[in-house]
């Protein structure tokens, strides 16, 4: 009773708000400033509103390859000096990532080095192509091939996961495959392709700059104007990506890999990010597989002991999200058994709503994790990226409270409705992996 009350008290708490100010430069660059002087640090976080999901057929991996090139140097930043310069001033965090819907570049620097970060970011936004040579492109292609080996080919089940995404989003949809792209397409990328990509997407009017941390507003605005104000805007990019087509009949694939344990993937193309059904499915995934009190864990790992681990998630994307259930089986467990048992658990919640307690737990835990993310200025769940995330998807950096309200409104019945409508046997993709020398997968 006490616990339930504590949970309810938290659920009733107002969502934390992140103070911010947003404005737009004449060249179209969106700027968001958020002050927090707890530590002498400032996070600079630029989102370019382009990701792997905007690529053309035959050019997979382009957005990600491009992200690498952004670290290679620009007119005034010498080759290979981006990381060393920031390391040398004690930047605690420097990174860039490419997702299907966006590409982000983040650095957290000592607050007295804010101008340095703005210099670096503006130079590669405005003056990247001056120094981009065939040699630099080839060098980064080689590095990306190593990254692909390390993150996809040399990890257990990595190749199956790629096949899984290919089945979920058949070509020519650009969500087809993995963000990092194929060896073949990477090889085919020419210098002209790369330059055209930059001129199309890497424009001030297709980017948002968030500065979050210890800074003084007036002088920072002047610095932003100084470094970014003269970068010319370009033609508004035209997004040709369409909503992923629904899957009309079940697709199956059996693969092998150099692994010890079998694995099952079940996936669906689901409600796009922030659209009706998205929040419901995120909470459904949490009820199914988040932690030892979750349904799949209790049923498959603890009670039947046929699985080593379970996982479920809704990966929210603009042109069609993905709802996934993954099961790693015990040694020699038949994938068919894993599938039948996992599906039975999903099926039960498609018919009968979860308890209010299950739903409250899922949401309270998720909310607390978001809150813990906000302790950080930069990083992938920090304040700067949260501001950019909401700005990208709904055009309002301050959407956190509204987003919390979206989840607060979810009822057990709504979870079941979302599952029963979107998560069906006839629209799913099932991929399994059994231990045997690696293949690229059998027939569909």
């Amino acid at each position, binding site marked *: 009773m006490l616990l339930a009350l*504590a949970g309810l008290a938290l659920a009733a708490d107002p969502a934390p708000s992140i103070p911010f100010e947003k404005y737009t430069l004449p060249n179209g660059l969106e700027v968001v400033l958020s002050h927090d002087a707890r*530590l*002498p640090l400032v996070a600079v976080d630029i989102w370019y509103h382009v990701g792997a999901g905007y690529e053309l057929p035959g050019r997979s991996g382009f957005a990600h390859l491009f992200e690498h090139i952004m670290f290679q140097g620009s007119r005034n930043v010498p080759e*290979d000096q981006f990381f*060393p310069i920031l390391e*040398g001033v004690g930047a605690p965090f420097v990174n860039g990532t490419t997702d299907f819907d966006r590409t982000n570049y983040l650095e957290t620097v000592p607050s007295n080095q804010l101008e340095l970060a703005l210099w670096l970011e503006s130079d590669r936004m405005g003056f990247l192509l001056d120094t981009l040579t065939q040699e630099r492109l080839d060098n980064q292609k080689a590095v990306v091939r190593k990254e692909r080996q390390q993150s996809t080919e040399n990890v257990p089940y990595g190749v199956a996961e790629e096949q899984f995404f290919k089945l979920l989003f058949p070509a020519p949809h650009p969500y087809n495959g993995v963000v990092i792209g194929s060896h073949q397409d990477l090889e085919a990328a020419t210098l002209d392709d790369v330059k055209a990509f930059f001129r199309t997407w890497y424009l001030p009017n297709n980017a948002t700059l968030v500065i979050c941390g210890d800074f003084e507003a007036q002088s920072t605005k002047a610095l932003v104007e100084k470094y970014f104000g003269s970068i010319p805007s370009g033609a508004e990019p035209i997004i040709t990506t369409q909503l992923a087509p629904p899957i009309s009949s079940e697709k199956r694939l059996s693969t092998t890999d150099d692994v010890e344990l079998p694995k099952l993937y079940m996936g669906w193309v689901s409600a796009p990010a922030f659209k009706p059904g998205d929040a419901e499915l995120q909470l459904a995934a949490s009820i199914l597989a988040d932690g030892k*009190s979750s349904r799949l864990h209790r049923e498959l790992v603890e009670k039947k002991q046929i699985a080593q681990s379970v996982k479920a998630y809704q990966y929210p994307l603009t042109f069609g999200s993905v709802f996934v259930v993954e099961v790693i089986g015990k040694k020699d467990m038949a994938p068919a058994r894993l599938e039948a048992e996992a599906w039975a658990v999903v099926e039960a919640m498609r018919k009968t709503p979860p308890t209010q307690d299950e739903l409250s737990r899922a949401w309270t835990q998720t909310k*607390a*994790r978001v809150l813990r993310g906000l302790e950080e200025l930069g990083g992938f769940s920090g304040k700067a990226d949260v501001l950019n995330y909401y700005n990208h998807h709904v055009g309002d950096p301050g959407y956190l409270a509204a987003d919390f309200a979206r989840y607060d409104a979810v009822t057990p019945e709504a979870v079941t409705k979302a599952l029963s409508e979107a998560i069906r046997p006839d629209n799913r993709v099932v991929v399994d992996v059994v231990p045997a020398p*690696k293949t690229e997968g059998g027939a569909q």
Partner: protein
Amino acid sequence: MIRLVLLATLAACAPKTAPVVAEPPPPPVDPEAWRANRPAAAPAKAWTAPVATQFTLSNGIPVYLVKQGDLPLLSVRLIMKVGRDANGDKAGLAALAANMLDEGTKTRDGAKIAADAAMLGADLAVSPSAESTTLTLDALTGDPLSPSLDLLADVALNPRFDKKDFARVVDEVVTGIVAARAEPRDVAQRTFLAQMYGSKHPYGVPTVGTEASVKALKLADVTRHYADQWHAGNAALVVAGNIDEATLKPLLESRFGKWKVGKAGRSAVTAPSAPLKTRVVFVEQPGAVQSVINAGTVAPSRTTADYWPASVAITLFGGMFSSRLNMNLREEHGWSYGAYAGFADARDYSLLVARSSVQADKTAPAVAEVLKEMGAQAGRVPSPEEMTLVRDYLVKSLPGNFETNASASGTFVNLPLYGLPGDEWAKCGERVTSVTAEQAALAGKSLLDPAKTLVVVAGPRSIEVDDGKGGKTKVDVPGELKALGYEFVELPRP
């Protein structure tokens, strides 16, 4: 003065017409030329890392409090100085006992522990490691705090050690060990430890144990281990977040203050001796497209005076993106996505390990480069620019360790573990800055000696590559490693 006034007057009176003789147009000025100058830093704000407030509970458990932040959050770590050293000949025992804790207490089963934590917005995690075991509670303050701390104390103090849970957890741990054989990283790490310490040494086996050693463990081993080792005398608490000592102390005292102090302290373990000559060990990883390289030697403990000079040397060698090791393998040769080196901190001694995944056909050349780079850096006196770089890298990034309560409490964990003072982090800048280039060179000299380095490679036996003539050829990985000319051995997979 007068003349100036006159000139100004004349200028003002000059007719506003174009000059008769046109001057050549000035060369076009690049309006962006100013960007060539890298901006200077603004004056740095004075900042010192927090000092942990220390107090003890009535049974002597030391508490380290880092008060920080304005969000209603708290990170609490219960650190037990119990690790692999307490295993005796039962590898994996300490970790298995730790993993049993959140499977059930006298009043809650595993699912209820997880459900209660979720309802409180808390994350509770058990992390067994080489020399300690940590229970971490990331909780919300306010109403949920008391029941969250109850949960932490319940899990730490009242484990039920149920027989059925035990059989299942053993199976999960064993299956996890088996599954990890598919990961070349794990295979390389396992082999490296066994080769460095010898497989009979408690540190010669990873914390989790081996398939055979865990299968052989009995529930009675776990209950005995817990009864001996899990007592107040082996415990410390580190707390970071928005709370003051007066509020925190009674909350901890009521939950942990009556915990009894037992006898068992830490067990002595024999220090490993550095290899006497370069030794290359190959373990086959079927199907791998990259080889994992672990190369290293014995290093000073976290508590010796040599620690900071050694850190400076190793950071320059392999601690940063711009370190020599990464520049060589990633940027110059393009064989790897990254290569780094660092210490595995430990009480009595440590290991220095350089790690990289490299494209399999370049395994032997990459090993040669790692050893060559070590040799080139060993004993080299860093330039003043390098010393500035490494100091700024290590010192100016320190505030980043205190952004989150979890990272702050994690940063302070080494105080109780290594007996460091409360101002360890406040003084860190001074300690790093006082390291001279010569001291760093001296510390690096023995650590980076290729002749004292053990190299372990987990990779494929052979890999097909283009022969440059439109055909394919096979690279014999162990053959090429052997041909490097060092002591070479191939071992079965662990």
